[in-house]
């Protein structure tokens, strides 16, 4: 088991390196002179050259990459020119808000996705199945950013029961109940598509497993139907669903970009959109690296969860 964990940990190192290479390459492809972009078109040539040197842009690309990587490993992601503060500080602050939102959404979509998947599989072709399957189809077809707007219209404007924006009330205490009230709508909105995907996959995995011989064995030894469904079929189905939950973590982290914009959640997604609009490239770079890196870690967790569940994986 420990050996397996170690192996998985080592396996993500090249992925993380590749990830930084891609981010660096994309940013290096930016047309034009970054120094001019930062200083504006009225900058003097001396200033541009000075900035170029201080940014290390007079060196070769490979050298630049290693300098950038080295700085990053020391926690230096550069300085955001639009906010005039270190990128790392801004990104971490924003990312913690995103984690609250994405974590809540991931929890919601996992729980509901699995439950709906089991229910629909257990009642295949029944009315529960048909209705839930249709709702799930609506869920994966609805644009999340539009759903967010509809929910704001209904719950915040019409009913006035939930706040439409922000993470805390401006004059509120900033306590947990306040956070939860602000979290409900965006977390739900963000979870809808992933719930649908997980539910569909769970349903088909359950149906596949329920045909297996070991399920017949469970029935033959007199296990009640609920035990057959939850203890036997569900556990086996979960093995193939967990990697997809890991992938959904990526969709939730990415989808947060829309939801944070709609609900003005102070997360890293909204920060990225603003940074792109102001062409604050270092901020974009830092945000992308942190979010993508955390996605890699999510997938590692999914891998480990799978190996914990399925003893055959470890060998």
């Amino acid at each position: 088991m420990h050996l397996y964990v170690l192996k998985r940990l080592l396996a993500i190192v090249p992925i993380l390196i590749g990830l930084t290479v891609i981010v660096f390459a994309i940013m290096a492809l930016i047309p034009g002179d970054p120094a001019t972009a930062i200083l504006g078109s009225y900058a003097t040539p001396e200033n541009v050259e000075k900035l170029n040197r201080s940014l290390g842009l007079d060196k070769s690309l490979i050298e630049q990459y290693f300098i950038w990587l080295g700085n990053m490993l020391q926690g230096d992601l550069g300085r955001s020119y639009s906010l005039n503060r270190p990128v790392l500080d801004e990104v971490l602050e924003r990312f913690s808000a995103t984690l609250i939102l994405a974590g809540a959404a991931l929890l919601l979509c996992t729980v509901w996705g699995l439950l709906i998947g089991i229910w629909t599989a257990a009642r295949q072709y029944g009315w529960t199945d048909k209705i839930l399957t249709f709702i799930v189809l609506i869920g994966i077809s609805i644009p999340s950013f539009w759903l967010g707007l509809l929910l704001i219209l209904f719950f915040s404007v019409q009913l006035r029961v939930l706040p439409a924006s922000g993470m805390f009330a401006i004059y509120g205490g900033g306590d947990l109940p306040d956070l939860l009230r602000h979290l409900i709508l965006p977390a739900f909105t963000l979870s809808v598509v992933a719930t649908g995907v997980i539910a569909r996959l769970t349903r088909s995995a359950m149906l596949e497993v329920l045909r297996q011989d070991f399920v017949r064995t469970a029935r033959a030894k007199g296990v009640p139907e609920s035990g057959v469904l939850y203890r036997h079929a569900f556990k086996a189905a979960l093995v193939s669903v967990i990697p997809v939950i890991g992938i959904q973590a990526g969709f939730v982290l990415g989808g947060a970009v829309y939801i944070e914009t709609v609900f003005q959640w102070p997360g890293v997604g909204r920060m990225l959109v603003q940074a792109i609009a102001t062409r604050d490239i270092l901020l974009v770079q830092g945000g992308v690296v942190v979010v993508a890196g955390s996605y890699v870690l999510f997938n590692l967790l999914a891998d480990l969860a799978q190996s914990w569940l399925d003893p055959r994986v470890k060998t």
Partner: protein
Amino acid sequence: MTALKLIARNHLAAFGGIVLLLVVAMALLVPFLPIADPDLTDPANRLKRPFTDGAVLGTDHLGRDLLARLLWGTQLSLVVGAAAAVIAAVIGSAIGIVAGYFGGRTDSLIMRGIDMLMAFPYILLALAIVAVLGPGLINALYAVAVVNIPFFARNIRGVTVALAHREFVDAARLSGMNDRQIIVSEILPNVMPVIVIAMSTTVGWMILETAGLSFLGLGSQPPQADLGSMLGEGRKLLITAPHASIVPGVMIFVIVMSVNLLGDGIRDALDPRLRSGALSRPAAATRVDRTNNPPETRKVDALLKVEDLHTEFRLGSRTYRAVGGVDFEVRAGECLGIVGESGSGKSVTALSLLGLVASPPGVVTGGAVRVDGTDTLSMNGEALRRLRGGRVAYVFQDPLATLHPLYRVGDQMVEAIRCHRSMSKQAAWDHAVALLEQVRIPNAAFRAKAYPHELSGGMRQRVGIALALVNDPALVILDEPTTALDVTVQAQVLALLSDLRRERNLAMVFITHDFGVVSQLCDRVAVMYAGRIVETGPTDDVLKTPSHPYTKRLIACVLELGGGRRVLSAIPGLPPPVDDLPAGCAFAPRCDKANDQCRRGDIVLGGNGMRAVRCLQPEGLPI
């Protein structure tokens, strides 16, 4: 085209297809429709509500007609989404074909790169690309296309790898074609359908994603407007003019939903498992749909009495009569062997006894199965559950597939115990270990903690037997328990079963295709052919003087050690398909004694109590 028909029969998919066609037709016809200029501002009439004069869907914040903007925006969104899909498909498929066709280093290098791209959350990568290229509709299109390339590359690579080693590719290479020619003329036509399907399932996503980027203000820039940027503009006036956000959102939703409905329909139509019913959930017990109405209980002196059992499989319009009227009985402590070729219905008979035939497609259509006189086919779920693994237990063929892979074998036994009696976990565990010892598993306390895949085949089958014995059953039904084992292990397991039978006075129904096994263990034997018993009697009698020609041939198939003088003869031909049984004797087509009489009318199982045979010209046994 059966696939097209299947889609048409799937109402939801057909509905999605029609809606999509309407939307596309509308988008194509926009220039010719009598609608207002989408860019004509009219501040006096700004933010008019829908269904007012002159503006069916109302106007936006600049007084522009929303209906006109919606239709033009739809056109733009569809074009951009489709273009992104085409670009992603072309580049992704090209990468996939190259990787899959050339394999080796090229493949691993390319796929490593693709994996790297997939390590990014989807939308994030698109954002990074837009950040570099700058906001704009064309740049958003590129971003969405690039992000979808890995999906195509992976799928198409998989298909190509399978194709690259097929005979027709080798043939093309031998005929002197170079790689480029082979890819274009042999590979591409074969992967094309996969590419088209992958596109049809992703184009909805791509429309959604480009709309999303536009919504964030990173896609289409004013005055040009696709559905996403309309929504983005409408959002700023969400509270004063909700219709400006609702209208474009509905359109995105309708497009994506109809694409998904159609895509699901296409996928289902092409999935052979769905057509065969292999993806439907089997019920807790086999469906019983009997024409006869036997009494629920009847006093019988046998432990198990099967009366005229009929089991069918109904697949689509076809009916496979797997078991066509089987009668037998087993007394306490007695062992009955049921012998037959694969497809003779012997396993289905065994599974029918306690409703374990997967249903759908299995249906019990007649007869009764009495355990202690009570008909199991009339039992409710709970009574049947108590019987299963309680008084009657099963041992199945391949214990690697029939034991749960994710639970320790001891825990699987504990569960079986605790489903039938209240016993503490520890006591149940001890009982399980004791039973593992009884089935001669060395170091049982340790092995109880093993997972099935950690045990050898013989060991697993011993676990399967122990699992059947946990609740002291009176009857064990063994469905080819030794078939998957090595010959030496097979002998050990048979010896074990023979001992257990004696020690515990177990009754057994032993299903096998091997007369050799029957002779070692069974008191009586029933020979099945095409879903019916053709001969039955005490094992020794049947072995010595088989009277049905089929029995005789079947016995002749058994190899006897040291018996080199006997001719090993296979039976010519195959058993008849059970959805199309011939009239008269089912064995007639393979029987060298068959005459016209044999091919006419039903032949009864006739005999004198102990011996019975279903043949008009039985051998060695006067009727």
